[in-house]
C-alpha cells in the first residue's frame, strides 16, 4: 500500500504540450507565502483577514482552529477558487493571483468532497491523470494503487451516490493524491473515517510527505492528528492567525490564552503581574522563567504538570499552589483525571498516573501545585 | 433597377409569385408553358405572393420577383412606387370591361364572390335571395367568409339591407356593419381558403361567400354546395410587376401573352374563372358542370356588381382598420 509517485518517472508522460503550465512549479514542494491575506464575503464581516504565513517547500503545515474560523476560506484562496479581497499569495516568490487553479498543480481534498456524480469511483480518481494525458496503462496502474491504498477495492465502478460517507471521503483523498501535485491542500480529509482507517491513512500521508517532500497544507479539527503529522501548526481564530509554531512549541508555550485553551487543556489563572511575582487572589507566585513582559498576562499550567494534594498536606518545596475543590475524578486505564474548581470558580484539571498518591476524592478541598518553571504566561 | 429595359439575348427566367396550390399549377399549365414554348423564357414559381414582401424587396432595391398574381389594390395604391406601370402596346385598356384597369394593373381573369349554401343542411326551404344570408331564423347555421373585408360581404349586406346594387359605391361601411351585427355571432372568419373548404365539407358552415375557384374546389371535394344567383359581386385577378425588376419588359410580354384569347380560354377552362378581355366568347369555353354552376359570367346569374376598383384602392386601409375593430369588438 504505497501512494504512487507521479513526476518521478517523467518519461511516461507525453511530450510536453500546452497542458504543462508555462511557469511549472518545481517537482518538489513549492514555497507558499500568504501576505496580508483577507477575504470578505459580500458585504459581511471579514471571514479571513491579515493572514501572513510563510510555508517552506516540503513543509507539512496544519491549519487548526474552531469551526468557522476561516480555514477552508484560506485554503480556497491558496487553491485559487476564491479571490482574496486583500493581500497576495506567492508561490516560489511569484504572485499567483493571475494563475488559474488548473495551472497551479495543487491537489485538493474538499471538505464537501466535490466528487463528480456522473463519474464512477475509478473515473473520479483517474480524472487528474487524464487531464495530464498519462497513457492508459499508467492511469490504470496508478488508480489501482490508490484504490488499494484507500481500501476501495470492489467499489471502482460505483457512482459516488452509491458509497457510504467515509468511502466518498476516501475517493476524494485518492483523487487528490493520485497525481502527486507539488502542493497538497487537504481540508479535513479524514474526518469521516474510523480510527483504524484514519491512522493507517495518516501514516500513508506522512509517508507520502516524507518521501516526496511535497508541501502539505492540512486542515483538521483533530488536535492529535495535527500534533502527530505537522511540522508546524497555524492556529486560526475568527479569521485571524493567532499563533504559528511547532506542535511542541505551541503546546508548551501557547502564547495566547486562546491557543492555550484550544490546543490541549489548561489551568488558567487570571491574576496580575507585579515586581514581586504574579498575584492571584491572596497569593503571590514567583514568575519563574520568562518573567519579563508578563504584564496583563494570564498564567497557564498544563494538566500533566500539575500535582494535587489534600489542602492540609505539606506542599512540595518551591512549588506554587492554588486552592481548589475536586469536582470529579475519573480513571482512564493508566491515568487518572481530576477535575477541579478553583476558588475563583474557574475550572481546571489535573492528569496524573492512575496509581498517584495521595488519592483525592470528589468534593475534597485540595491544593493544586506546580513548579514555577512549568508555568507559562499567555496574552488574554 | 439600374439595368431596367436591358434587352439581353438568350433565354431568360422570370420569377412568378402566386397563390400556390392547384391554382398556380393551372397558371403554369395554361400561361407559363405556352410562353416558354414561344419565347424560351423559363419560369421560377414561388408562393404565396405577399405584398409585404414586394414592399420589402422594392425598398431594399432587390426585387426578386418579376410577376405576381396578387390583389390589384396594392398595385393601385402603390403604383410606380412598388409596382411597375404597364405600358406594353398590347395592353390596350379598352380591351377590358370598364373600370377594371389601372396604370399598374390590367385584369388577367375575372371571378365572383359567390354566395352559396350547403344544400345538405336545408332539406325543405332553400335560400334563394341574398337576404337569406342574413336570416338566421329561417336558415340557421354558420356563415363562413374569408377574413378580409373585400370579400363581397359588405356589398351583400348593403344590398340585403335594401341598397340598389348600382348605388353601392361609395360603400356605407357603417350601415353594412350594422347589418352584419345582426348575424355576427353566426359569422366565421376563416384565416385561409383551405379552412373555408374544410369547414364546408365537414358541414360546419351552412353558407359561404367565397371566390369562384374556391367554391368549385370545395364542391369537388365533397360539399353539396349550391350557388344562389340573386346578388353577387364580381372582381378581377391581375398579374403585377414589382418595381425595379430588370426583366420588367419581358414580364409585360408575359402579361400580354396571358390575356390573349387562347391562353385566357385555356386558363378559364382549368380554373373555372372567366377571361378578362371582353372580346373572348365565354360560351366557347369548355367548362365542366361544376365550374358552370359557380360561374357568375354566364347568362341568368341575377344581379352582379363589379367591385369598384377606385373606391377600394382609396379606402381599403380605412375599411381594414374599421373591420378589425368591428370584428374583435
Amino acid at each position, binding site marked *: 500500500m504505497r501512494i504512487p509517485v507521479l513526476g518521478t518517472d517523467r518519461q511516461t508522460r507525453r511530450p510536453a504540450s500546452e497542458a504543462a503550465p508555462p511557469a511549472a512549479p518545481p517537482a518538489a514542494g513549492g514555497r507558499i507565502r500568504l*501576505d*496580508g491575506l*483577507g477575504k*470578505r464575503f459580500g458585504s459581511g464581516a471579514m471571514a479571513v483577514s491579515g493572514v501572513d504565513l510563510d510555508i517552506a517547500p516540503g513543509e507539512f503545515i496544519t491549519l487548526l482552529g474552531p469551526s468557522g474560523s476561516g480555514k477552508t476560506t484560506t485554503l480556497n484562496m491558496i487553491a485559487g*477558487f476564491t*479571490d482574496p479581497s*486583500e*493581500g*497576495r499569495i506567492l508561490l516560489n516568490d511569484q504572485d499567483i493571483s*493571475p494563475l*488559474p*487553479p*488548473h495551472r497551479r498543480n495543487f491537489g*485538493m481534498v*474538499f471538505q464537501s468532497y*466535490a466528487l*463528480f*456524480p456522473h463519474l464512477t469511483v475509478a473515473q473520479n480518481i483517474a*480524472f*487528474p491523470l487524464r*487531464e495530464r494525458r498519462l497513457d492508459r496503462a499508467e492511469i490504470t496502474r496508478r488508480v489501482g494503487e490508490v484504490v488499494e491504498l484507500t481500501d476501495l477495492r470492489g467499489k471502482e465502478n460505483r*457512482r*459516488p451516490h*452509491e458509497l457510504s460517507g467515509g468511502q466518498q471521503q476516501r475517493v476524494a483523498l485518492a*483523487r*487528490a493524491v493520485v497525481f502527486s501535485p507539488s502542493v497538497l491542500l487537504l481540508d479535513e480529509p479524514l474526518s469521516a473515517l474510523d480510527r483504524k482507517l484514519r491512522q493507517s491513512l495518516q501514516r500513508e500521508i506522512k509517508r507520502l510527505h516524507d518521501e516526496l517532500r511535497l508541501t502539505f497544507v492540512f486542515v483538521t479539527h483533530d488536535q492529535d492528528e495535527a500534533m502527530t503529522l505537522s511540522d508546524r501548526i497555524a492556529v486560526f481564530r475568527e479569521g485571524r492567525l493567532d499563533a504559528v509554531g511547532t506542535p511542541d512549541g505551541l503546546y508548551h508555550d501557547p502564547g495566547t490564552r486562546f491557543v492555550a485553551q484550544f490546543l490541549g487543556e489548561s489551568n488558567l489563572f487570571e491574576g496580575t503581574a507585579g515586581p514581586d511575582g504574579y498575584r492571584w487572589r491572596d497569593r503571590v507566585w514567583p514568575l519563574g522563567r520568562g518573567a519579563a513582559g508578563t504584564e496583563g498576562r494570564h498564567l497557564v499550567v498544563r494538566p500533566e504538570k500539575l500535582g494535587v494534594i489534600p489542602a492540609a498536606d505539606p506542599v512540595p518545596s518551591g512549588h506554587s499552589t492554588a486552592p481548589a475543590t475536586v469536582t470529579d475524578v475519573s480513571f482512564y486505564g493508566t491515568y487518572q483525571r481530576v477535575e477541579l474548581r478553583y476558588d475563583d470558580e474557574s475550572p481546571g484539571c489535573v492528569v496524573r498516573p492512575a496509581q498517584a498518591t495521595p488519592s483525592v476524592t470528589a468534593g475534597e478541598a485540595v491544593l493544586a501545585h506546580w513548579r514555577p518553571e512549568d508555568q507559562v504566561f499567555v496574552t488574554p | 433597377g439600374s439595368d431596367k429595359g436591358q434587352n439581353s439575348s438568350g433565354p431568360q427566367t422570370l420569377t412568378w409569385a402566386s*397563390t*400556390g*396550390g*392547384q*391554382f398556380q399549377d393551372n397558371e403554369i399549365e395554361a400561361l407559363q408553358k405556352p410562353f416558354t414554348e414561344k419565347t424560351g423564357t423559363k419560369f421560377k*414559381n414561388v408562393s*404565396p405572393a405577399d*405584398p*409585404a414582401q414586394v*414592399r420589402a*424587396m422594392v425598398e*431594399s432595391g432587390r426585387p*426578386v420577383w418579376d410577376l405576381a398574381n396578387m390583389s390589384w389594390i*396594392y398595385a393601385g395604391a402603390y403604383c410606380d412606387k412598388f409596382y411597375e406601370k404597364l405600358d406594353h402596346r398590347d395592353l390596350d385598356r379598352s380591351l377590358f370591361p370598364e373600370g377594371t384597369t389601372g396604370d399598374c394593373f390590367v385584369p388577367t381573369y375575372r371571378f365572383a364572390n359567390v354566395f352559396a349554401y350547403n344544400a345538405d343542411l336545408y332539406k325543405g326551404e332553400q335560400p334563394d335571395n341574398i337576404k337569406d344570408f342574413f336570416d338566421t331564423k329561417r336558415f340557421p347555421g354558420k356563415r363562413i367568409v374569408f*377574413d378580409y373585408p373585400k370579400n363581397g360581404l359588405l356589398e351583400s349586406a348593403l344590398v340585403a339591407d335594401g341598397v340598389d346594387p348600382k348605388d353601392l359605391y361609395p360603400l356605407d361601411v357603417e350601415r353594412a356593419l350594422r347589418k352584419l351585427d345582426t348575424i355576427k355571432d353566426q359569422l366565421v372568419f*376563416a*384565416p385561409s381558403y*383551405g*379552412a373555408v373548404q*374544410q*369547414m364546408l*365539407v365537414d358541414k*360546419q358552415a351552412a353558407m359561404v361567400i367565397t371566390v369562384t*375557384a*374556391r367554391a368549385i*374546389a370545395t364542391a369537388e*371535394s*365533397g360539399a353539396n354546395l349550391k350557388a344562389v344567383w340573386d346578388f353577387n359581386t364580381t372582381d378581377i385577378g391581375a398579374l403585377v410587376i414589382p418595381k425595379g425588376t430588370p426583366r420588367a419588359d419581358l414580364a409585360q410580354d408575359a402579361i400580354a401573352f396571358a390575356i390573349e384569347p387562347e391562353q385566357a380560354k385555356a386558363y378559364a377552362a382549368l380554373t373555372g374563372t372567366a377571361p378578362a378581355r371582353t372580346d373572348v366568347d365565354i360560351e366557347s369555353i369548355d367548362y365542366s358542370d361544376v365550374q358552370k354552376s359557380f360561374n357568375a359570367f354566364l347568362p341568368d346569374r341575377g344581379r352582379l356588381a363589379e367591385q369598384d376598383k377606385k373606391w377600394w384602392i382609396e379606402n381599403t*386601409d380605412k375599411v*381594414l382598420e374599421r373591420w*378589425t*375593430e368591428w370584428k*374583435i*369588438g
Partner: protein
Amino acid sequence: MTTATVTRGSPDTARPVRGAEGRNRTAAALLLLPALIALLLLFVLPMISVAVRSVTEPQAGLGNYIGLFTDGYTLRVLGRTLLVALIVAVAGLLVAYPYAYAMTLAGPVGRALLVTVVLVPFWTSMLARNYAWLVLLQDGGLIQRFSRTVGLGDEPLFGTTAGVALSMTQVLLPFLVLPLYSSMQQIDRRLLDAGQSLGASRLRSFRKIYLPLSMPGVMAGTSLVFVLALGFYVTPALLGSPQNAMIAQIINVRARDRLDFGGAGAMGIFVLVVTLLVMGLAQRIAKGRTLSSVPGVAAPARPAGPGGGGSGPWLRLYTVLVGFLLTAPTLVVIPMSLSAGTTFRFPPEEWSTRWYDNLAHSPAWTESIGNSLQVALVSALAATVLGTAAAMGLQRLGPRSRGVLFGLLLSPLIVPNILVALVIFAAFLRLGLNGTLGGIMLAHTALALPYVVIAVFARLQGMDPRLATAASGLGARPWSVFRRVTLPQALPGVLSGAVLAFVTSLDEVVVALFLQAPGVFTLPVQMFNSVTIQIDPTISAASSVMVILVSVPILLAQLVGARRGKAGTR
C-alpha cells in the same frame, strides 16, 4: 466591483489584478460574445430599423404609438393576449409539472417512453396539428361526442376560448415539460427525506422543499410558454372566434394587408416593452419567495432509484392522461393521412394511401422534407453551441446584468414573427442571403438561440458550482472542465435546448416563407402553401412521415442509452 473600494493594510498589499472573479468576468464576456453578435446582427440591428420606421412612417412623430392607445382595440387585444398567454402558461404548468415529476421517478425505459411522448407534438407539424384540433373540436367532432356521451353537455369547443386554450396548451406543453424535467432531475431527493423526518408529510415536504427547488425549471418553462403563447396566431385564427383574436393577428393585418410597416413596428415594440415589463415584474415578485439560484450544499444528488419512492397510482394515471393529451392530435393526424377524401377526415370514411403516393411522387414534398431536416439540424446545432456558451456566460454574471441580457436574449421570441421576418428578409436581400438554405439556417439559428439559453441556464442554476472548481483544481483546463464536468452535468438541459431549437426550425413558417426561393423551401412552407387556398391532405401524410422519421430514432437512441447506462452501473 463593490469590493474595489478600500485597500487597507500595508501599501504593498496590492489588489490582485486578475483572480478567480476577474477570470470569471472575462469568461462570461467571451462565452456570451458569439450569441450576442449573432443576435445583434440578426435581430437587434434590424429591430432598430423597425424602431426607426415606427417613428418616421407614415409621418415623423409618435403618431403610431399614440394610435395604439386611441384606436380602441389594440390595448384590448393586447390585454386579452397577455391574459390568454398567462392562462395557457399556468394551465400548462399544472398539467406539465406532475408529468415532469413522473419522468424523474420513472425507470430508464419508462423515461424513454415518456420523453418520446413529450416530443411527439413537436414532430407533428403545426398546421397538421391545428387541423387535427379543428376536426376534434368541431360540432359533431370527437370531443363533443365524447362529452355528450358522458353527459357533459354538447357545447362545441370550436370558436371558444376554451378550445383555443386547450389546443395551445397541448402544443406548448413540451416547452414546459423539458426544462422542468431537466431541472427537477437535479434535486437531491434526500432533502425530501429530511423534510419528512422533520415532521412534514409527503405533500408538505413536496410543497416546502421540492417546489421551491424546482423553481428554475418552473421559471424557464413558464416564461417560454408565456412568451410563445403571446405570439400565437394560426391557432386562435383557425380555432377561435374574432373575440379570441391575439395581438399577432392584429400586427399581421397591419404589416401584411395594410403594408403599414411603421404602425406594425410600433405595435411590435410596444408588445416587446410590455412583455418585458410584465416578466420583469413577475421575476421580482417571484424572487421574494424563491431563489433564482440554489447552489446545492449536499453531497452528490442521489437520483431516484428503487426505494426512492416510485410513482403512486394517481400520478401514474395522471401521467397517462397527460400523455394522451400530448399525443391526441397525432393520433388524429395519422389516420387522417390515410383517408381517401380531399379534405381532412377523422375518422376517415374511406381509406387509401393516395396522399402517401402523392408525397412520394411529388419532388416539392420530398425536397421540402429534406430541406427542413437539413436546416433544422444545422440551425439546432449552431443554436445549441452558441446558446450553451451564452447560458454559461449568463451564469457567471451578476444578477442585474443577467436580467438585462436575459431580456435581450428572449426578445426574438417576443417580437411577433412577421416583424422579424420582414426585417430579416430586407437585411438578407441586401446581403444576397435570401433564397438560400444558408440564409434560412442563419435566421433560424437566431430564432432558436433563446430556447437553448433558457433550457441550459435553468439546468446550470441547479448545478453544484464546486464541481467545476474541483475539476479545475485537479488540473483541468477550462475546456476540459466544460467537456468532462460541466457538459455531462448540464446535458439534459443542453439536449432539451437542442430539441427545442430543432423543432423551432422544423416548424417555423413565417421567416422561411419570406426567405424561400424555388428549390429552397422548407416543409412548413410547402404545407402552408398547400392549405392557404385549398386543402391538401398530403400535409397529414408528410406530418405522419415526420413523426415516424424523428420519433423512432429518438426512442431507439434512448432505449439503447438506457440499456448502456444500466450495463455501465450494473
